[in-house]
């Protein structure tokens, strides 16, 4: 993975690692919302919502959009919608889990072999 891409992915994962931020992102991903609208749906103050949105925006997950006098946030599809990025992360996790499973099976087989030899 290119260093810049790895950094961007790490920022996104870190941003979504906070449960409240994940909820904020989930709401925004369904429909564009203002800070007040997000705050109305979660037990979080407006300044706290603003702070979470800033982190999500910095991570390339949401974008601020101004229509007339109305500010609202919508998903940043260019930032998030890179399926290749996602597949990259998917294999990182997949191979880490594959390693755990392969090593577990190898240990079990080795132990079974030893028991067989003892008999």
């Amino acid at each position: 993975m290119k260093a810049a891409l790895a950094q961007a992915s790490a920022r996104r994962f870190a941003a979504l690692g906070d449960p409240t931020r994940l909820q904020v992102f989930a709401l925004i991903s369904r429909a564009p919302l203002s800070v007040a609208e997000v705050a109305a749906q979660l037990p979080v103050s407006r300044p706290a919502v603003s702070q979470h949105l800033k982190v999500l925006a910095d991570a390339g997950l949401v974008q601020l959009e101004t229509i007339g006098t109305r500010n609202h946030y919508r998903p940043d599809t260019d930032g998030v919608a890179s399926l290749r990025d996602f597949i990259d992360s998917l294999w990182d996790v997949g191979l880490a889990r594959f390693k755990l499973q392969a090593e577990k099976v190898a240990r079990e087989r080795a132990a079974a072999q030893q028991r067989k030899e003892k008999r």
Partner: protein
Amino acid sequence: MSTTTDRMVRKSVTVAAPLAVAFEVFTAQIEAWWPMASHHIGQADCAAVVIEPQAGGRWFERGVDGSECDWGRVLLWDAPNRVMLMWQLNAQFQFDRSIETEVDVCFTAIDARTTRVDLEHRCLDAYGADAPAMREAFNSPNGWNGMLEHFAQVAGTLAAARA
């Protein structure tokens, strides 16, 4: 270790398992390690992910109710050294015959108890061919919410692995 280009994802991992075990776990026990077992393709809960052990074989998911959903097919089967699969899942992780990406996995014995696995997921530009459709897929509630859940789960799995 991993490198990525615009069209390809490349990964390597070394596991403390004999070559035959590594190959078997990768191909015959996918459901034991695939990160998205709970975000399966089909409607039913996933009972198994099956790779038919021959070139031209199917690669599919079997639900607990016996229903089957394709993931792609087998391009090359050379147990226990190499398997090449055609991955045909679209942006919403649904089977799409028009999407043709390749997952090429090579297994190399470092010694009797250690195996290196080199994986390349190629032809990812198959996803870029129709950018407006991709955008629409991502913007649809199904696509977005699906991706969100995937992201959340991957993030959670990574965090748990690091803890």
